């Protein structure tokens, strides 16, 4: 299961395979939630949108056609639709969701950044846990390498080794992505 590609998982989900669906969830729940938070700016509604996304994935997996696009793009489109539907249901006055980075972004840049974040976050979920943990700590926790080593209770050299291995593995997973 760990190495099965996303397209095969979607197709198995379409046949009612609950295990495949849960593996898709494990891989994509965080990227979906991240996109929902960026779009909606509200954690509660973003969590609702995440649930709705996976309900939609379960329901519509049968319609996925590998020849029409990548699995990741299909999942991204389903998530985007669910999030847009959730955005339409807002009851408060319209307000633009805060996004990161804070600099003003045009629609194209916004879409490009959303797609980039989706791919990076999805790829992170494919890493072994110990490599993913050091990368997330290194890039987003604000901890130094020494602090990460202390936090994880491993030698500093191990943190660097795992960081290098994680980046190398991500390089393969994000082979076509350039900034």
């Amino acid at each position: 299961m760990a190495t099965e590609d996303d397209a095969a998982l979607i197709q198995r989900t379409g046949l009612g395979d609950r295990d495949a669906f849960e593996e898709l969830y494990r891989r994509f729940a965080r990227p979906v939630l991240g996109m929902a938070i960026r779009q909606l700016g509200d954690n509660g509604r973003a969590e609702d949108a995440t649930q709705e996304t996976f309900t939609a994935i379960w329901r519509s997996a049968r319609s996925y056609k590998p020849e029409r696009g990548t699995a990741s793009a299909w999942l991204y489109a389903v998530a985007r639709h669910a999030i847009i539907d959730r955005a339409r249901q807002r009851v408060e006055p319209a307000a633009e969701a805060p996004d990161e980075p804070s600099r003003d972004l045009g629609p194209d840049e916004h879409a490009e950044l959303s797609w980039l974040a989706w791919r990076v976050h999805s790829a992170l979920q494919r890493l072994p846990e110990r490599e993913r943990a050091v990368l997330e700590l290194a890039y987003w926790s604000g901890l130094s390498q020494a602090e990460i080593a202390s936090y994880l209770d491993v030698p500093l050299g191990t943190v660097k080794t795992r960081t290098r291995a994680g980046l190398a593995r991500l390089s393969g997973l994000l082979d076509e992505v350039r900034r």
Partner: protein
Amino acid sequence: MSERHPAGLEELVGDGIPEGELAELRRVDSLLRAVSAPPELPDRLSSPVREPSRSGRLWTPRRALAAVALAAAVAAVFFGLGAWTAGDRFDERYAVSMSGTFEAPAASAVVRVGGADADGNRPIRLEAAGLEPLPEGGYYVLWLEKDGEYAGTCGTFAVAEGETEAEWTVSYDLGDYDAWVVSARVPGDEASDAPRILEAEIKAS
């Protein structure tokens, strides 16, 4: 997240890395620095929260029949009330003609779109002709398409004599969609996609 920036790449991975590998690591490093942290999943999302039905389909034949029966009952009540209070006053704003696909070249339909109320709900009425009655348990579905994908269901209906009218209320912003589509769901044909029977481009109000 902390205001502190991550250390430079060389500090993160250590010295002595061949230049070719370092270039690849730099590419990924720049990607990670360009995006925000993925959120942690809260407890309520630790697993797929809603247990989807085993069939994986929202509109099972049984549900569709129940929905059609319920819709018919509701329509009967509202039709009676409407006729009693104001007659048939469908507030049509525009109409869209639907053409039969190669699956049903003789079929046609008109979607009549009413005005939205203060809450954003608008009535739609479908008048269809030339449709084949479906086997018991089968039903037609009117839905909205976006980018070639299923995007929203407007309602289901059945046909007895080839012609029918059905009316629903929807809250969609129709300008967000590309096309109206009617598909047929035939019981016992679960493995295949529901065939498209009628289609029309969306026309903005």
